[in-house]
């Protein structure tokens, strides 16, 4: 009986000794923790859309003209709406995608904003820049016409994209937020006689 008790006590002593040996010293450290948060850093957004000015549905096609003759023209419009959180500057330019250079170069283009002419010159040299603030939209009216009466233009085609482009810039340099929307157009010259 005594022997068993002593044996048990010896085992317990051995276990405690091993624990204390590895613990080396009892740590009763005090600790205080302070938390600063939540900290939030969030990137803004740059986004715009081209809309039909009549019903505000998405718009990707602009002009589709068949049989354009000298003095003829057509009018189209687009509403550019800022759907991002940043004010931005956008540019409008034209790139020929297919067809004949002669007709594309002969086409005349007008841009009106707030019914004020902002551009009035050749189609391919279009360069228009404007600012668009957050939550704002801007309506642009375009007129595409032909003034040149040269017979060489008869039956020619011109396909082009009107590209609305925005790249965010700051005083520290160009930010890499960008958006680009494209309006496709197609023009075919008609038939006419010169000099009656």
């Amino acid at each position, binding site marked *: 009986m*005594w*022997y068993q008790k*002593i044996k048990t006590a010896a085992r317990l002593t051995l276990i405690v000794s091993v624990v204390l040996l590895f613990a080396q010293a009892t*740590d009763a*450290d*005090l*600790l*205080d*923790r*302070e*938390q*600063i*948060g*939540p*900290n*939030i*850093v*969030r*990137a*803004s*957004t*740059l*986004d715009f*859309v081209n809309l039909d000015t009549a019903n505000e549905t998405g718009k990707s096609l602009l002009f589709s003209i068949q049989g354009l003759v000298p003095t003829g023209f057509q009018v189209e419009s687009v509403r550019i709406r800022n*759907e*991002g*959180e*940043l*004010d931005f500057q956008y540019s409008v330019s034209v790139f020929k995608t297919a067809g004949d250079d002669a007709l594309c170069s002969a086409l005349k283009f007008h841009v009106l904003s707030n019914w004020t002419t902002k551009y009035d010159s050749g189609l391919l040299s279009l360069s228009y820049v404007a600012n668009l603030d957050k939550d704002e939209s801007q309506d642009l009216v375009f007129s595409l016409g032909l003034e040149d009466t040269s017979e060489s233009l008869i039956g020619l085609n011109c396909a082009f994209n009107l590209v609305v482009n925005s790249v*965010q*810039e*700051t*005083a*520290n*340099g*160009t*930010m*890499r*937020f*960008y*958006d680009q929307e494209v309006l496709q157009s197609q023009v075919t010259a008609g038939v006419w006689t010169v000099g009656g």
Partner: protein
Amino acid sequence: MHKEKKVIQSIFIIAFTLAIVGFTLTQSLFRDSETSDTSTFVVGTLDMEVLGPGGKAAETIEVLNVGSSGVVSGGKTWVIKNVGTLPGELTMGIESLSNNENGCNEPESLVDSSCENPGTGQGEFGAVVATQVFIQDGNHPDPIISSDLSSAAVDQYALQWHANAGTINIPAGGSLEVSLQWSTEAQNFENEIQSDSVIFDVIFDLQQVLI
């Protein structure tokens, strides 16, 4: 059985005898004793306050319009005050770091295939936010921590503090300024970070210095 019992009894007798002999032989011949009137045991306190510069309340970092002009860098300074009665060792880290996607607008969706909202862990913004931590104690002119805020930042903060700060003790009543600076470089990101956010907690631990 009976024999073992005798052996154990013998061990006890020998141990008891040795204890008596040891106690007797180590007694000093001269003896003096003093009694203090009142003994008081007071447990020390370890307590830390985190304030802003000039004693203002500590501020969190909140920048919600990265990408607009003029807001591409910033920082916060915190004053760590040991208001307890015990010296403490300071460590700093970040926890609860979350890079959220917050969905994608049209420009982002063209270059980013992960567009959930909130999309925890899908955001790319943290990887282009460079942070540096400085200790204003006159001994650490270089940043203690230089890390982005990607998901690996929690480990980076812990590793670099341990490696570069050394032991930062704040005595009772003492204080120390710690600042966190952040910046984004325009050439480091494109549309993939639009609307992304990075959320995190800054943690200060003051641990009792064992004397």
